[in-house]
């Protein structure tokens, strides 16, 4: 028996969340005396995969076949199912993001396995399987049990940490048997996004609200983001007004993210917005209004005019990053 971790493949690169998932799986595996196996679909170099060995993974199954580089949810589900059978996996872990959630529910149906997304902590019990998850857009924490033979989890980013645990990682090729792999889905176009950090994966996010006053003023946030290697984001009214693209909207009805640092600049901090970043390790609020609700949820606060603070901050960060190098 084992714990199977679905490893997200972003153009041959690992994401930090896969390392976290590996560490999370290892903690479960130690309690149950199991081992941790990863599954990666599509091309990824062994050197990249080896990183997973630092976080408790002992085996990776790689489906290194170009025909699977294109994600087809139905096909991917069947590949994971075959890996589950091969490794006799009792627990299957996916990243808590759009890709994980595109496949995990389908797998849940095929295996009749309980599916628990947005997991916040290690399981508190294995018999029955019990774990805490986020509910009501972060306004509550639910305790959930699954009585099924197998369980599928998507632990949230930052819910566990990243303890190192070096293992000898064995990399095995895995050949699934899929009939007509992509007969139903036809790719008719693709646009690569511009260079820049993707919001969902970013360690640092620089986000602006209505307090930025106009779309032009977001240039200074983009500059700050470039200095920090951060992604940019915004609050709902800003996206609704078209100052920023809709996919940058963070909040209850936008993206849910969990970066290490979230800069909320000129964002008042309505609960609908905060619901989108409650998983962040650290929230920095910058607002001209000392009474803004963002300071109720922020870890650090600066009161003042964003148009003055942001360029200053950019300078100080630039120096800091330079010194660090």
């Amino acid at each position, binding site marked *: 028996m084992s714990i199977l971790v679905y490893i997200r493949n972003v153009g041959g690169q690992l994401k930090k969340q896969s390392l976290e998932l590996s560490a999370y799986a290892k903690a479960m595996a130690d309690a149950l005396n199991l081992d941790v196996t990863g599954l990666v679909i599509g091309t990824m170099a062994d050197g990249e995969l080896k990183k997973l060995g630092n976080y408790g993974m002992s085996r990776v199954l790689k489906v290194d076949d170009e025909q699977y580089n294109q994600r087809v949810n*139905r096909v991917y589900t069947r590949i994971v199912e075959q890996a589950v059978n091969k490794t006799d996996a009792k627990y299957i872990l996916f990243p808590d993001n759009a890709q994980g959630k595109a496949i995990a529910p389908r797998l849940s149906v095929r295996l009749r396995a309980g*599916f628990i997304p947005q997991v916040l902590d290690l399981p508190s019990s294995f018999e029955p399987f019990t774990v805490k998850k986020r509910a009501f857009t972060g306004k509550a924490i639910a305790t959930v049990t699954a009585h099924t033979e197998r369980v599928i989890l998507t632990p949230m980013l930052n819910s566990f940490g990243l303890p190192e645990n070096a293992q000898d990682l064995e990399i095995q090729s895995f050949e699934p048997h899929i009939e007509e792999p992509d007969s*139903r889905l036809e790719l008719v176009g693709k646009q*690569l*996004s511009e260079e820049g950090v993707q919001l969902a994966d970013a360690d640092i996010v620089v986000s602006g609200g209505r307090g930025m006053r106009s779309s032009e003023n977001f240039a200074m946030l983009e500059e700050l983001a470039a200095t920090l290697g951060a992604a940019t984001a915004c609050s709902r009214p800003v996206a609704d007004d078209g100052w920023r693209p809709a996919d940058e909207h963070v909040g209850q009805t936008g993206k849910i993210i969990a970066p290490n640092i979230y800069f909320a600049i000129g964002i008042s901090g309505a609960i609908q917005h905060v619901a989108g970043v409650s998983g962040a390790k650290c929230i920095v609020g910058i607002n001209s209004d000392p009474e803004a609700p963002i300071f109720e949820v922020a870890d650090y606060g600066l009161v003042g005019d964003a148009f003055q603070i942001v360029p*200053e901050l950019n300078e100080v960060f630039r120096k800091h990053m330079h010194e660090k190098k």
Partner: protein
Amino acid sequence: MRVFVCMSYVPDTTTKIRFKEANTQLDDASIQWVINPWDELALTRAVELKYDAASPVDEVEIVMVGGVRCEPILRKGLAIGADKATRIDVEPLDAFQTATQLATYLQGKDCGFIVCGIESGDYNEAAVGGMLAELLDYASVSSVSSVQFDGDAPVYQRDVANGKEQVKVDGPAVLIVQKGFARVPKIPNMRGIMTARSKPLDVIPAIEVEPLVEFVEYAAPPAKGRVKMLNTPEELVRSLSDEAKLL
């Protein structure tokens, strides 16, 4: 072309969430129920497509799993512009039970595609769409941000990790849609509100399905520590670097 929109109902986003029965159940006494915001965007776009002469969509039906209390929400959906609503008469217990009810109803029904909002604002499962697709053995296209048409064939645009893709599906698909699918939810007009009651709202019995997971208890999230107010950008950088150790 008929389009199905699967809707769920959730507490209004500004509602305070409280629990009862020793924190085992949601206290729904003072809750105002609304259409799940993502489902509302899905419905908005479906209705826009119906009124867009260039699109083959000519019928929009809402399907919801829920008790009688969700009928006002279904009628709101009809007021927004759906042609028909179907309520499957059982309280949703988990994503699997909900998806199975939907699949049982939708099995074999002719349609162009089925739209589900990315997740519901209550249990945040983001699971019903994927499960439904698997139960129906349809393709699922997730993170869908728009639908265009190539003749009568829908072309779905989905967000992927490094950009956007446009895909076509042979046969019906389940779309899991997100923000951007419609800009803002459509506000129903007087005519829509007035005619909502005259549109069909069918209630059909549920089938027996065991849920796969059980919600046993709820708690409030841990209280956040107090904010540390700083005076200068230098102090902030020092705190993030030396104290929080995040830089």
